[in-house]
């Protein structure tokens, strides 16, 4: 049986009927057409599908869309405002924190969640904060630099 759900994504309210087995990541990408959230392993390991759900980072491949009924989601598309990149996006760009870019949306959403709770994280805290996100280009050094830099920009 399909379930009616109402979810607010990046400020817009969507109402849809979904099968209970529909994963949140498929809802975001295929039903809403927001392709910024990536699908990596679909096994709760890589973190490419990370979004912010009710203020907390979650792996959207390990949640059913029906579980998000009544909730609020922020995905990578919701970060830039009025054509202006979010400080995290700018810092990733300027610090060369990506090569292929596949992990980047999830990495940025995890970093976003970290900086929401800890505005001045140490390098160790940053590494722990993004330990649920894998980068196969081994670009962690610059990713950590970018998050440190984004924290500085946000604290200005």
């Amino acid at each position, binding site marked *: 049986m399909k379930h009616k759900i109402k979810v607010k994504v990046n400020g817009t309210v969507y109402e849809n009927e979904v099968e*209970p*087995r529909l994963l949140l990541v498929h809802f975001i990408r295929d039903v809403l057409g927001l392709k910024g959230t990536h699908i990596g392993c679909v096994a709760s390991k890589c973190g490419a599908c990370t979004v912010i759900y009710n203020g907390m980072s979650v792996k959207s491949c390990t949640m*059913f869309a029906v579980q998000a009924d009544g909730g609020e989601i922020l995905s990578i598309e919701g970060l830039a405002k009025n054509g202006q990149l979010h400080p995290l996006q700018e810092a990733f760009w300027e610090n060369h924190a990506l090569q292929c870019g596949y992990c980047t949306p999830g990495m940025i959403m995890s970093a976003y969640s970290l900086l929401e709770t800890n505005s001045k994280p140490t390098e160790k805290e940053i590494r722990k904060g993004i330990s*649920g996100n894998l980068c196969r280009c081994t670009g962690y050094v610059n990713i950590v630099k970018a998050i440190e830099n984004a924290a500085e920009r946000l604290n200005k």
Partner: protein
Amino acid sequence: MIPKNFEYFVPHSIDEAISLLEKYGEDAKLMAGGQSLIPLMKLGLGFFKNIISIERIPNLSYIKEIKEGGVAIGNLTTHSMIENSDLIKSKYPLLAEAASAIADVQVRNRGTIGGNLCHAEPAADYPPVMVALDAKFKVIGPKGERTIKAGDFITDIFTTNLEYNEILKEIILPIVPPKTGGAYLRLCKRSGDSAIISVASVITLDDKNNCETVNITLGAVGPIPIKAELAERMLLGKNLNEIRLSDISEKASEAAEPNSDIHASKEYRKDMIKVFTKKCLELAINRARGDGIQNETQN
């Protein structure tokens, strides 16, 4: 990676959840945060006709002191709440250590202590800690509430003492006497991996630094947590000046007969129990004596 279809129910009270369990019997499965269950369903290793999502039942997510002393934790409390709770960090540091060792931030934001315990995975981090702390589980079913000791809760791999129509409602941690220290350490290859072996210990000292109570519990080396009773006995009643932790750790490693698998051989596991039991006891004893700042542990 797309699970078979299922019916989905969202009860808003424990009574409603229990009546759904009664109605659907063996075809029903409770889901809390779903961080273990959803991966199983996606891999086709678990199929359940009726998923009963209990995460919308109010007032089951809390960490609070109880008047008899001790702390009560609601079944829907997330690992993140536990790892960041000042109350847990100060009174039961080993529980905070176990919570922060689970997977990664995103999983800890969704995963719950009740779900983790009921899943009863042999390498899970909470079960040995619960046994070492002598926790009690409040369980509710159609006939009312009953209490199960942590040591009796998990009975086999992925199997608990719960009846099909019962729900784990609350975890009760006993009062911590003065001069008590505890620690939880685990070995894993990469951050977020399951434990290859784990050790939880809780020690209470008397005024003269004799070991008044001792708990050493091993995790991930058998279907259920293993209490290293002979090792405990070597410490019990002894003064800290007259013990050799390396002997006790050696004895602890004899308590388990772990399997060899892709992650580690049986021999390696037994060796690592020795190493980690020693470190774990040192940390617990330091904390019991109140020596300086609590050491930061590796997760």
